[in-house]
């Protein structure tokens, strides 16, 4: 009975893995590359590289903003942020009059302009492809995130089909055997070592599915300024005032590591300063101070700890799914596990394919070989009669 159940789990594991191997493999490979997509862009674009490594508290936000404004006075400013670790330049994002976002890269130590790049880059393309296959998001996100169910089922069925799987963590692949055996051994070994990672990716992927189906966490309330201005961002708002706003945000949330500034896009919206503080597994948006860009008055402030359980789950999904919670070290770890997970998809397909080839060869060998039976010539038949 137990053996029959195990065979059923094995069948389910093989069936799921095979049928979804192409799409799942594509999503896994793009996701793996997306983990290090900022770093890929950093390698490809010299402008993204900070000339000197600058810690978060020492970033010259005001000088960077002034330099960006001087270089591109025609842009409407959206954000100023540092996308990743100390090796990255500060990024100012603004839109043109035809609504194309542009990125300006600035030295975090003194704000010097390092260069300008377009919005389209490896990070953008890999993220969008992995997230929704560049389909309309209302279809693409549920489609891709529903693969998390298949991934979870593959993990569970794989473990249930693998008798005493806990003994397999240190079982060496039998390299001297046939290709099918090697594929199978590798598949089991990689699967075991990445099973915790698969569980994390499945759970967070399922969360994205839930979000796309309407179970997303409520957003933090957005502050409004008391007296709307003539412009979204006052024309005289410069780097000095930005530095004052950031100083005010740090006074409100002592210890805030500022990583992001969002410029107001409407006349009644505030300037928003975000960063990391004391809460674990939250995005920058969880720690936020809203400031009136005219008066410098602090309008509201939130810490990650102020969020409800639903919002904390939503906040934790990205750091866990992308591996960003521990900086470059966890990103690289996620990248390696991503490679393992992608390899599982391909080694699983390899196991199936080599088994099919072997079975085809065996069925040919078992097939009765046609034997030539001498047929008597008609005249001999007649003579015999």
């Amino acid at each position, binding site marked *: 009975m137990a053996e029959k159940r195990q065979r059923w789990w094995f069948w389910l594991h093989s069936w799921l893995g095979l049928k979804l191997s192409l799409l799942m493999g594509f999503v896994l490979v793009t996701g793996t590359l997306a983990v290090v997509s900022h770093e890929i862009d950093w390698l490809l674009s010299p402008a993204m590289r900070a000339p000197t490594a600058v810690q978060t508290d020492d970033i010259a936000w005001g000088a960077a903003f002034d330099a960006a404004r001087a270089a591109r006075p025609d842009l409407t400013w959206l954000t100023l942020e540092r996308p990743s670790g100390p090796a990255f330049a500060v990024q100012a994002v603004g839109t043109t009059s035809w609504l194309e976002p542009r990125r300006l890269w600035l030295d975090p130590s003194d704000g010097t302009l390092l260069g300008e790049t377009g919005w389209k880059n490896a990070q953008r393309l890999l993220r969008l492809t992995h997230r929704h296959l*560049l389909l309309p998001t209302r279809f693409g996100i549920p489609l891709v995130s529903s693969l998390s169910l298949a991934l979870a089922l593959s993990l569970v069925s794989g473990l249930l089909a693998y008798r005493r799987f806990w003994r397999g963590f240190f079982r060496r692949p039998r390299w001297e055997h046939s290709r099918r055996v090697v594929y199978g051994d590798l598949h089991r070994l990689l699967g075991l070592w990445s099973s915790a990672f698969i569980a994390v990716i499945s759970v967070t992927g399922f969360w994205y599915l839930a979000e796309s189906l309407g179970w997303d966490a409520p957003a933090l309330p957005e502050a409004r300024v008391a007296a709307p201005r003539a412009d979204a961002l006052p024309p005289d708002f410069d780097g000095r005032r930005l530095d004052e706003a950031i100083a005010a945000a740090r006074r409100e949330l002592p210890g805030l590591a500022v990583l992001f500034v969002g410029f107001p896009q409407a006349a009644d919206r505030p300037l928003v300063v975000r960063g990391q503080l004391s809460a674990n597994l939250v995005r920058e948006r969880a720690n936020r101070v809203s400031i009136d860009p005219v008066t410098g008055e602090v309008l509201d402030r939130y810490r990650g700890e102020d969020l409800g359980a639903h919002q904390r789950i939503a906040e934790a999904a990205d750091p866990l799914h992308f591996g960003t919670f521990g900086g470059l070290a966890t990103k690289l770890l996620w990248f390696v596990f991503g490679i393992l997970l992608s390899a599982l998809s391909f080694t699983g*397909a390899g196991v199936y394919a080599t088994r*099919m080839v072997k079975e085809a060869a065996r069925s040919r060998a078992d097939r009765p070989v046609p034997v030539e039976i001498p047929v008597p010539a008609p005249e001999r038949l007649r003579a015999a009669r």
Partner: protein
Amino acid sequence: MTSPLRAWWRGQGWVRWPSLGLIAVALLSMIRYEPFPTDWIDHGERTLGAHQVRLSTQGAVRQGQKLGLRLEVTAAAQADADRPLALEIVGGSSLALEPADSASGRFETALRVPESAARVVVRALQPSLPGEQDVRWDLGFATVP
């Protein structure tokens, strides 16, 4: 002889086709991805003589490439409705417009942005008015294709 690749490919059954289709669409969309809207962007209305003129553009403003332009003209007085207009990219090509030719007062065209253009300004002018009156829309810096 059955190759492993063929065995895997056939083993997926019909699911391989929608999978392949989705991947093909994703790859094609990656190549064609443009980070700006493809619909018309309104740049505002100006008064030119007796006309109210509204400019919209379509697509990105790239050096040396054509830019989709739409001018909507409404005449304040019927007597001025037929006065000819011209639309030009400053430093680049221009086009004469005859309001009488368009019942709706809407003109759609594409003009090439000069190769050397840094800041792109679109100008609508009325040559028949004294001093060749014009109105301008500063679109900002053209980007390199």
